[in-house]
């Protein structure tokens, strides 16, 4: 067992599950989407990104790219939400925007997990 693999696998999968947890629910009602879950998703995503930094292999660079995509989407969602609270107010269009952005991030996270699992299956050790 490789502790490194455990930690990075944990964060990569946790970032996907948290992301899914936030995304799951009615598209336009704010009640079904917790801001704390978004916050947790962002933090775990950032940690997953950092764990992938500096890996020179081909797979490592693709993993890093997917993670960066997820980061950007989630941070954009959080920014839109924050700006909306302090200016126009959160209506159903804003919620729709935030949730769809996190949906995009979810796709990136799924890609990342698929690649990660694929690599693990291929590995001979």
């Amino acid at each position, binding site marked *: 067992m490789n502790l490194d693999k455990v930690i990075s696998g944990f964060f990569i999968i946790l970032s996907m599950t948290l992301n899914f947890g936030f995304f799951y629910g009615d598209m336009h009602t704010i009640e079904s989407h917790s801001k704390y879950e978004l916050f947790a998703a962002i933090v775990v995503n950032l940690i997953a990104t950092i764990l992938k930094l500096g890996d*020179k292999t081909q797979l490592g660079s693709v993993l890093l790219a997917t993670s960066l995509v997820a980061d950007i989407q989630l941070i954009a969602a959080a920014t839109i939400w*924050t700006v909306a609270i302090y200016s126009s107010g959160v209506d159903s269009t804003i919620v729709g925007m935030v949730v769809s952005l996190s949906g995009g991030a979810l796709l990136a996270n799924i890609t990342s997990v698929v690649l990660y699992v694929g690599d693990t299956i291929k590995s001979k050790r």
Partner: protein
Amino acid sequence: MRNNSLFIILQKMRIPFLVIIITYTIAIIGLVLIQGIDANGNPYKMSIFDAFYFISYTATTIGFGETPFTFTYPQRIWVTFSIYLTVLGWFYGIGSLVSLLQDKLFIQEMQKAKFLRQIKNLNEKFIIVLGYNQITKKIIIKALEQGLRSVVIERDKSRINDLILENFTPTVPALNSETYSVRVLEAAGINKKNCKAIVSLFEDDALNLKITLIAKSLNKNVKVAVKSTTKNHTENLKDLDAQIIVNPFSIISSEINMALIAPNLFKIEKWLYKLGNLNANLPLFPKGLYIICGYGRMGKKIFEKLNDNSNIEVKLIEINKNKDNEFTKNEISHLVFGDADDKELLVNIGIKDAVAIVAATNDDTTNLSILATAKKLNPEIMTIVRENDLADDLLFKNANIDHIFTPSKIVVNKVTNALVNPLSDIFLKQIIKKDNIWASELISKLVREIDENPLLLEFEIGEFFAPEICEYLANKEILFLSIFATSLYNHTQKNNIVPLLLQRENDIMLTPSWENEIKIGDKLLFACDAHAKNDLEYICQNNYEFYYALTGKEKLTIFKRN
């Protein structure tokens, strides 16, 4: 060798980044969870953004105060805790980044990246020089004078600093590398089209051989200039198609031989190497008894050459009886073991009757001392010496010695000539087969028609140097060599210029006559004065001047009459 510096930063910054994110997260979660009181006394909870904002300016020690409302005591306790947590995390991150920038490995990677960038942007012709020292420095300078750039790979860091202080213009990129491996040579750009040659002049023959092997397998078209001091290695190098193999000792011995048999040839060679002019005194090597002190690589070569001459007798002195190589019978009959600096030994061997003494050991002090002793015993004797270290130049010049041979200078001349002026190198190889009379005729012709120190000009009839000639020849017209001698003041007169060599593919013509036809792709070597050189370049490149040289009329372009 890829660019690793970015990856080093990323890898080493993993933990600091993680620390920052985790400490921020803990502090933010605490602030969000703890209840506060707003301006009207109502309970409220901080939003995530408020908490992030507060922690951001607290962790970076900017400190705007308590926002959005004054904190309650539970909040303040948490903030106190988070200040220690986040500020420490932040400073740890910054500290790691700063120490990374001073990291040796990182700096080395940055220099490597810079070197690779320089090589990538190098678009002129260049040579790769391995090792930076007195000899290669001269080669670099001479190459730069001819518009040939250099790239240096050196093992020793302090030598690289010397090179940087030298301030070559244009710059000479230098790479510090422990080994001369395939990857290092690739990084130095041996695979580039404009890489013309690689210069490897190490004392270690085996290393030279290895580099030749690598260079030839990486790029067949690159010329290899390599030093070899033994017969065995020279043959190996020839098998690998190394174009320029320099054995300073064999060059010295053939120079001495040349001076004996054909002093005029020796004079021409000195002029080609820009070591003397054509009116210099003839180096006169008398016939008689020669004493060679020190029977090593150089002594052996000289002995081989001198022994072929019937009216020269040779005596050898060697101090070390147990030298690794075994002596042949012929050598033993000439050989005396002992200290050449010993007066008795010199007298016994016949110094009083000797005409010349050669000090060829690898120690400068010994050489000078032997010659001083010999001069005392026989003031008439001609002295020949081997100078090993260029730093001793002054000593040798003041020692009143007849002929000084410096292997390192010979290597410089030979290599630069072969790299920068390939035709004059070919010319030199050809004339060695000629005799003294031929040489004296050539010298008197050069002095009569040009001057005592003519310039050398070599070029190829091609688009680059002679576009006008090329265009004319491409139209199936015929031109003769004499066009190059035409004076642009009066086309019926000739400039001071003498053709030395014409190379057409593999055919080489020495001193071709003016009536020779020229073809595209011919390579020509001329001796001329500055004025003739100027005119020749005009004829080759300027439409109007070429027309004048060809027809003797001014070319009319505005009122064209066809």
